[in-house]
C-alpha cells in the first residue's frame, strides 16, 4: 500500500515536471517567435532605410553619375512602362514610388505618370505583382503590414531652349515600402 502510494507520488511528480517543462518550452517558443518577428521587422526597416539612397543613385533612375538623390524624369517615365516588369526581382524593397510634391501633392489630385500633368510614378509594387499572379487576393490586406520610408529628391530632365541645354528640376519625394510581417 505504501509502495503504491510512493509510485503514485512519483508519477504525479513526473507529470508535474513534464508539464512544467512543456510550459517553459511554450513560453520560450512564444518569446522566440516574438523576437524573430521583431528582428525580421527591424531588419526590413533597416534594409528599406539604407536602400533609399541606393535606389536614388541607381543608374536606371539617377540624373547622371555626379548628382546624389537626383532622379531623371525621363528614366522614371521609362521605368513605369513595360521595362519595369524586367526589374521585378531586382528591388531590395517591397515598393518604390516617386511623388512630385511641388505644387503640393494631394491624394485627391493624384495622377499617375506617364500622362499629362501627372504627379506620381509607381516604379514597383510587390503587392500589385502578387495580385496580378493571384487576382483573388485582396490588395488592401497586403498593404496593412507594410511601412513606408521616404526622402526628398530632385526630379530633373534635360531641356533645350534657344540652343541652350539646361536641367529643369522639381522637388520630389522617393518613397520605399518595407514589409513588416509575413
Amino acid at each position: 500500500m505504501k509502495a503504491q502510494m510512493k509510485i503514485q507520488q512519483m508519477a504525479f511528480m513526473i507529470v508535474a515536471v513534464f508539464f512544467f517543462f512543456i510550459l517553459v518550452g511554450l513560453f520560450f517558443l512564444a518569446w522566440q517567435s516574438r523576437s524573430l518577428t521583431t528582428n525580421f521587422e527591424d531588419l526590413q526597416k533597416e534594409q528599406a532605410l539604407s536602400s533609399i539612397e541606393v535606389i536614388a543613385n541607381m543608374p536606371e533612375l539617377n540624373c547622371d553619375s555626379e548628382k546624389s538623390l537626383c532622379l531623371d524624369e525621363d528614366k522614371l517615365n521609362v521605368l513605369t512602362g513595360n521595362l519595369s516588369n524586367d526589374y521585378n526581382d531586382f528591388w531590395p524593397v517591397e515598393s518604390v514610388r516617386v511623388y512630385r510634391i511641388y505644387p503640393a501633392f494631394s491624394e485627391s489630385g493624384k495622377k499617375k505618370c506617364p500622362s499629362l500633368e501627372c504627379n506620381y510614378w509607381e516604379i514597383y509594387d510587390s503587392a500589385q505583382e502578387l495580385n496580378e499572379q493571384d487576382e483573388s487576393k485582396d490588395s488592401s490586406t497586403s498593404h496593412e503590414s507594410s511601412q513606408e520610408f521616404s526622402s526628398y529628391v530632385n526630379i530633373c530632365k534635360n531641356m533645350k531652349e534657344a540652343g541652350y541645354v539646361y536641367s529643369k528640376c522639381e522637388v520630389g519625394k522617393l518613397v520605399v515600402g518595407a514589409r513588416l510581417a509575413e
Partner: protein
Amino acid sequence: MGAEEKMKRGEFNFVWLFAIIAGAAILILAVYGATRLADTTRFQTDTEVGKKLSIITDPLQAGFAEGSFGKIIFRSETRVNNYCDSGEFGKNEISVSTRSRIGEEWKLAGGATSIHNKYIFSSPQNSGKEYYVFSKPFNFPFKVADLILMTTESYCFVNTPEEIKNEVLGLNIPNIAVENCTNADDEVSVCFGSSNCDINVFGTCTNGCGDLGVYEEGSVLKDGEKMEYVGNLMYAAVFANKEIYDCNVKRLMYRTAKIAEVFSKKADLMNARGCNTGLKPDLYLISGMALDAESGDLIVLNNFAKQVQIKNDRELCGLW
C-alpha cells in the same frame, strides 16, 4: 531477514530505480532540447547576420565617389559563403556560419540572403573575424553598378603602376601593402606586368585608356586561370575566384544591356521635346551585344563602349 525488511528493501530499490530512469529520461530530453534549441538559435543568428551583411554593404558602395573602403568586424570568427547565380539580373546569395568551440567547428550556415542589386566579388568561402570591403564603380561606358570587393586575406602589390598605387593608397586599405611586402605565408602577392607572383596582372590597353592607364583593360592570371577585365573589374579579378568573377560579370553585362534600353527609351523622350541625340543606334548595339556577354567578350565590347562614350561627350544633349 524478516519479510517486512525484504519488502522495504524492494520498495527502496523500486523507488530509486524509478527515479533514476525518469530522471535520466528528463535529463536526456532536456539536453536534446537544449542542443536543438542552440542549433536553431545559431541558425537564426547566422541568418540575421547574413541579412545584416547585405544591409551594411549599402553605405559601403562607392556611389559617386572614385571608391570607398570599410571594415566589418565580427565578434567571433565567421565564415561567409558567397554563391552567385547568373540568370538575367542574377543574384549573390550570402550565408554566414559562426565558428563553434563545442562539437563540429563549422556548423551548417544560416539561411542565405539573396542580393539582386549588388555585385559581391569574393572567394566562395571566406573565414575570419575582420572583413575588408571596398567598392569601385563600374562604367561601361555609362555607370552600371558599384563593385563590392570583400576579402579577409592580406595582399602585397609588386611593381604597382603609379595610377593604381595612388588609388589603393588613397583608399587607405589596410590589407593591401604596396611594395612593402612582409613575405608572410598568408600574404598573397600580386605582380603587375610580370608573372612571378600568386596573382599576375597584365595590361593591354593601347588607346583611349582611362584612369588605370595600360591596365584599363587586360587579364589577370590566378590559380592557373585567366580572367579578362576592363576598368575597375581588374580589382574584382584579383580578389574574387574565377567562378564568382565570371558569374558577376555576366550579371553586370545583363544590367548594362537593360540600362542601355532605358537610355534608348530616354533618347526617344528627349528627341520628342527637341533635345536630340543620335546615340540610339549605338545603344541598341550595346544592348544586343551585352545581353549574353561573358567575361571573355569584355575587351571587344569595351572598344565599342569607348567609341560610344566619345559620341556621348560630343552630344549637346548627352544621355549620361
